[in-house]
């Protein structure tokens, strides 16, 4: 495989864009743009849109950062650029 610095950077940007699209979807998507639509569904005691905007989005944010850390450490090793 291509282990050049360019290939490393492309893998990094691809991961970042993937995670940022989830970031956008859960906050701006479910929490704001689809807020009224999702509110017709009930999620335990919450309306679904309300839950995303006041709870769900935050849980996803935490998850996204940890997935990023885990995947980046893997990519670093794969391309041999990890720190000693």
């Amino acid at each position, binding site marked *: 495989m291509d282990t050049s610095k360019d290939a490393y950077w492309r893998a990094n940007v691809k991961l970042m864009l993937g995670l940022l699209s989830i970031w956008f979807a859960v906050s701006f998507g479910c929490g704001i743009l689809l807020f009224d639509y999702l509110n017709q569904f009930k999620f335990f*005691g919450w309306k679904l849109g309300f839950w995303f905007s006041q709870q769900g*989005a935050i849980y996803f944010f935490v998850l996204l950062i940890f997935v990023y850390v885990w995947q980046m450490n893997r990519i670093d090793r794969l391309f041999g650029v990890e720190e000693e």
Partner: protein
Amino acid sequence: MSVQVLTYIFVILTFGLYIGIAIWSRSTSTNEFYVAGGHVHPLANGAATAADWMSAASFLSMAGIIAFEGADGARYLMGWTGGYVLLALCLAPYLRKFAKFTVPDFIGDRYYSRRARLVAVICVIFISFTYIAGQMRGVGIVFSRFLEVDINVGVIIGMAIVFFYAVLGGMKGITYTQVAQYCVLIFAYLVPAVFISIMLTDNPLPMLGFGSTMSDGSGVFLLDKLDGLTSDLGMTAFTEGSKSTIDMFFITAALMAGTAGLPHVIVRFFTVPRVRDARISAGYALIFIALLYTTAPAVAAFARINIIQNIDGIAYSDAPAWFGKWEDSGLLAWMDKNGDGKIQYRGGSALSPTKPVFSASEGPSGERQLLNEATSSANELYIDRDIIVLAHPEIAKLPNWVVALVAAGGLAAALSTAAGLLLVISSAISHDLLKMSFRPEISEQQELRIARISAAVAIAIAGIFGIYPPGFVAEVVAFAFGLAAASFFPVIFLGIFSTRMNREGAIAGMMTGLIFTFSYIVYFKFIDPASNHTENWWFGISPEGIGALGMVLNFAVSSLVSKFTPAPPQEIQDLVQSIRIPRKD
């Protein structure tokens, strides 16, 4: 023991702890003073970042705002946490690899320009002072209400404490006191929330409690009950918003990008040893922050229910003791519009102008007489949003030690943020303004002394803000985030992700974003506040959210200008390549 005695005990204990840590972790070099020597453990940095970030606004004000705004309050919840995803994925690891001391350092070096560095220094100082003014108000509220000392004395005590550990300890001292302050503030926030959650829903976890059924055996979900109560009293139902979707979108975006661009947060990622530590410590920081941010909306819903159930319809003469005490502080007021001696809490604002103006005399029921006009609304109650978190334990009749604990937590939140901001101001002056721009010949010892002096001067100025609070504090908070979003976030992002971005593009973009955002806010907040309504806003975007549009303009202008001007020198392009690779070359 009384609340006041317990508050004194908690405040003295926690302040003693902060001072002890400051003595133990004194800084002796500029490297330690600016970035704690660069060897803070990522977990400690996560906790310190959380305390640095969560200010009096997060601790004291946010749940109160959500309690009254309901669904609209989500812009703060998402905006102030979502920014950490941007920070972790787009900025923190690369700035750590860059390995310098300040945000203007990065902008000055990456764009090989003293002018760009100076623009950045001005923004850093402006943003940080705006922010500090709010912290000092928080310190003043806590001291005057719970210790019943003069606000000025309270502010001076707070200044003395911050002076001690920021000036002596620098970043090293601040980091370890912030870890302690995080523990104090999160404990103080969660304990009353857990108590109240159990009382209202039988669920000990507040973040689940507010999605549960009421504990009164009715089987009704708490939020459905709250929607019913608010609608019945002629207010907007709690889970429905009144802001437009486009405004919510832009405000949330401005808060997110602003969070990621705030210098006192960014600089925390210079303090960890490695790039991978910067990544993981952003994750730890967000977990620590999320603990408070997922609890806050629950506290908000609980507080709204408790206020309606415990206050509405009560005769003023039977009102609990805390009611009169908050009235004395001027943050709560009651006007008996229908003359029945009972407190009516309804939709709409009770007073005109909105904030209470008291006369010296007492009304027929013994309340503080108001000089305001009555509005046409039947609402008789004015509650300042900043008091909700502090008053809620008393409203819910929790034990005195919980009330005192919350006061200590509020002080921890305000002081930890103030210290982080002071450090950023002092390093902007001693490092960026003197050492790197105008007086490069000074020695490290001189630079360190100047850093300490500028921290001391900054504390004095912050104290003056606290003693003579400028009336416009609330109005200018939008500035801090708007300007950070419109200036720092795009230039730092492009500085990492585009090798082609050059000095001309960055300066043009930064100036466009700044001037645009600044003018829009100044126009609607200061020049013509009467026209500050949806129909006059561009695309329906309020001044609070305009920073997001400023950011888009910044991206557009800088990309365009850099296309038609020379590429950056080879060594700058090499610098960009090197910060993208974690391993040292």
